[in-house]
């Protein structure tokens, strides 16, 4: 051993559960991310179903008002931070190294750390249900209702601590993917030859790196107010709680692009593949992504039109918000142009991508409606906004993520899903989604406020609420069908070939699932969609069905490590310590420090282990 001072042997080719715990293989970490995020997506969905049950009729008593507050807070926080973001991360992890022709990410252990830290954040947040009550101030946690004076108990503390831990996980992953994408591309893969999903991931990673520090500071300030009695958001001390809203939305608006850009990337892969045509206007799609990433910083106060920032600020943010719809609209026309005169196959990923375009466009249009400060004043905090965000986040992000699940399913699992089952799933989810959220436009314009736990029967909102709840039930059936379809395909689907879709990018140039080292030989790239082109040039190396042992023998992969897990566990202990007892926090810090030191001194590859070659 190279570290005699740490008399714990390094894991060498572990198997079973231990193999997953110590893994630093980007593909396994991607699977871990995906499965965990999906479980949390289901939990967030159940929370939504309970709320829909409560609202199905006027003046019901399914849950208490206090419970309802916790439900909508947990639903929003879970879906955004624990479901959509990590599902995106699952695709980053699994797909990006394959798309750029790399054998792993730039920092494999940091990657494992990201996953375990994300899991720690998920435990911290959901554990609150069992430790005296979940957070109850909405996913945006507006001050001063999150302050100690108005919100005693630990709910908000768990919310703060989990978002801080999740922030660390997201930042670590974002740094990792920036370096991976910029620095580990196959020879010849210039920036403008990168697949669109890789491009959108790169932009997303930059948004993460720049946006998360802002929410980190906001959360630190809130935490100090609660723990140490500082005055950041205490109006009595002269503080302006609007500062919280500014800091939150300076993060929050880039965050919505963090949620949607990977989705746009997935759709930009699926549409060309199933239209048998290159993406229409590749450079324009890239450029509009960059413009979205840049302009995403100039619009945040559209969440605050009713705060009273004054006519000048409202006008400025109205104009920037209307303007940011332009690059998004450009992308939609590019997607339509991609399909124009293509030979289209309506397989499940394609259906979900088409669903994405349709539903996301509706969400985009309602978004432009409340980009007008005057019009927004009517819509602020009504169900109209709830309809909008679900059209862009469910109809947008989730549809595209499900498209991605089906699209890469053969690559991830080595098996095919059942196509008929996939199509049924699509129609169930599509119908359920629209039935749930379209009526919310009506209830919203009719004046129904969000976040109320019940309403008076005289308001006339019952019919559309009943419709929404029926839609939610249908949606639940659709998600159940998705789970059944995926699990049954995974268990007993027929074996998938390396390139089942006759696809375009490098991940399809290898067996399904890929060998541990990904590429036996790193490819040289000469154009966009190089794999597609090389198939047409007939110089494509045949896809190897199953990698033989010999081939991977001389390829040296980074070895497993448990130190990333140790650091993450330290963070979790530290988080609980800050809430309950500082001595525990010190223990958490010590555990993390031990992990960091051991990690720093642990060589990427154990020289002894490699000496056999």
């Amino acid at each position, binding site marked *: 051993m190279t570290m005699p001072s740490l008399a714990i042997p390094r894991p060498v080719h572990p198997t079973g559960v231990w193999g997953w715990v110590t893994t630093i293989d980007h593909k396994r970490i991607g699977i871990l991310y995906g499965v965990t995020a999906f479980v949390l997506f289901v939990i967030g969905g159940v929370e939504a179903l309970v709320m829909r049950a409560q609202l199905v009729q006027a003046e019901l008593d399914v849950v208490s008002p206090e419970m309802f507050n916790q439900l909508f807070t947990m639903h929003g926080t879970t879906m955004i931070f624990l479901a959509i973001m990590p599902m995106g991360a699952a695709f980053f992890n699994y797909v990006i190294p394959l798309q750029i022709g790399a054998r792993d990410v730039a920092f494999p252990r940091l990657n494992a750390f990201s996953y375990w830290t994300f899991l720690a954040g998920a435990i911290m947040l959901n554990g609150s249900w069992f430790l005296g009550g979940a957070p109850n101030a909405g996913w945006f946690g507006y001050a001063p209702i999150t302050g100690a004076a108005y919100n005693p108990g630990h709910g908000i503390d768990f919310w703060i601590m989990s978002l801080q831990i999740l922030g660390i996980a997201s930042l670590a992953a974002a740094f990792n993917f920036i370096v991976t994408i910029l620095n580990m591309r196959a020879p010849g*893969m210039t920036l403008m030859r990168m697949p669109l999903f890789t491009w959108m991931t790169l932009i997303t990673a930059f948004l993460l790196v720049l946006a998360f520090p802002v929410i980190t500071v906001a959360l630190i300030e809130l935490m100090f107010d609660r723990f140490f009695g500082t005055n950041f958001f205490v109006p009595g001390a*002269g503080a302006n709680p609007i500062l919280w809203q500014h800091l939150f939305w300076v993060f929050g608006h880039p965050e919505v692009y963090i949620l949607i850009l990977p989705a746009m990337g997935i759709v930009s892969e699926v549409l060309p593949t199933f239209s048998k045509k290159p993406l229409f206007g590749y450079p324009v799609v890239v450029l509009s992504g960059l413009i979205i990433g840049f302009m995403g910083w100039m619009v945040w106060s559209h969440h605050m039109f009713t705060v009273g920032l004054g006519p000048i600020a409202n006008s400025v943010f109205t104009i920037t918000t209307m303007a940011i719809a332009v690059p998004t609209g450009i992308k939609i026309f590019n997607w339509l142009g991609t399909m124009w005169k293509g030979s289209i196959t309506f397989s499940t990923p394609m259906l979900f991508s088409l669903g994405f375009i349709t539903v996301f466009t509706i969400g985009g249009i309602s978004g432009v409606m409340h980009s007008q400060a005057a019009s927004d004043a009517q819509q602020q905090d009504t169900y109209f906004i709830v309809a909008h965000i679900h059209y862009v986040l469910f109809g947008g992000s989730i549809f595209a993520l499900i498209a991605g699940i089906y699209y890469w399913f053969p690559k991830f699992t080595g098996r095919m899903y059942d196509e008929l089952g996939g199509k049924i799933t699509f129609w169930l989810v599509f119908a359920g989604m629209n039935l749930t959220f379209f009526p919310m436009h009506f209830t919203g314009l009719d004046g129904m406020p969000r976040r109320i736990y019940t309403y008076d029967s005289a308001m006339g909102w019952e019919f559309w609420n009943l419709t929404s709840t029926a839609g939610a039930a249908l949606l639940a059936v659709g998600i159940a069908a998705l789970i059944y379809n995926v699990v049954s395909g995974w268990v007993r689907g027929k074996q998938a070939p390396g390139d089942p879709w006759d696809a375009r990018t490098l991940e399809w140039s290898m067996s399904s699932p890929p060998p541990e080292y990904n590429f036996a030989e790193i490819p040289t790239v000469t154009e966009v969609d190089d794999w597609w082109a090389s198939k047409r040039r007939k110089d494509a190396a045949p896809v190897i069905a199953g990698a033989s042992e010999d081939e991977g023998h001389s390829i040296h*992969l980074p070895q497993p490590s448990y130190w990333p897990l140790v650091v993450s566990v330290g963070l979790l202990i530290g988080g609980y310590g800050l809430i309950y007892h500082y001595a525990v926090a010190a223990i958490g810090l010590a555990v993390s420090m031990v992990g960091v030191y051991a990690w720093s001194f642990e060589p990427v590859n154990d020289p002894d282990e490699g000496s056999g070659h």
Partner: protein
Amino acid sequence: MATAAHGGEHEATTTGLNHRKMLMWAFLGSDCMFFGSLIATYLVYKGKSKGGPQPIDVFDIPVTSVSTFVLLMSSMSMVLAYSALTRGSLKGFRIWIASTAIMGMTFLAFQVFEFNDFVNYEVHFKCEEVGTGSLTEFEESFSDRCVDGVDEVDGIHDSEGNNLTGLTPKTNLFGTTFFTLTGFHGAHVTLGVIWLLSIFFYSFRRGRVTPERHLDVDLAALYWHFVDVVWIVIFTVVYLFGVFEGF
């Protein structure tokens, strides 16, 4: 060639740049947003405090100038440590990196001293100065203590002897934002000192810190200089501007 050896700098990368160094710069760009948000909070609340000491009451510019100077010089010492290592002088490297860490600790000592001073800040003034414009607003607020027969006000305490005029994070918005901003800078310095000392002690193990592995030191140095430039901003924006109302 699939993976670079630990600390190897000439791995084949797309850009020709080292992975770890690229990560470091991305982190520093990100950390700019962290301090930017803290400075924004400080400035948004500048002059909005209700009661309690203001910057002009507690700041001691000459003392802070000295600690600023120490931190600036530690940056020089850091770059000389790196320079010595790349030229192959392990001994020079050790001397300079140790002096960098010592200057960092000196800066922290100044900060502890300063924080302590602010927490125990007491109001002293001569009553003849009341209304002459030479007292700060905060001092003037105690001018009703100048009754017949009292020539000067000398510290203000309650019946149990507790200082009523100290500045803590709870006192007012200035205390809240000042201690948080400079405290997080201090935390960055502390982390840097731990990092530098770790490398210093590690250098006594043969072959661990070598000119070929200068990147390990380079990364720590980048972090250290970043902490220094953040202080350059804080010194001007918080301390020197501290006495101006409005801006």
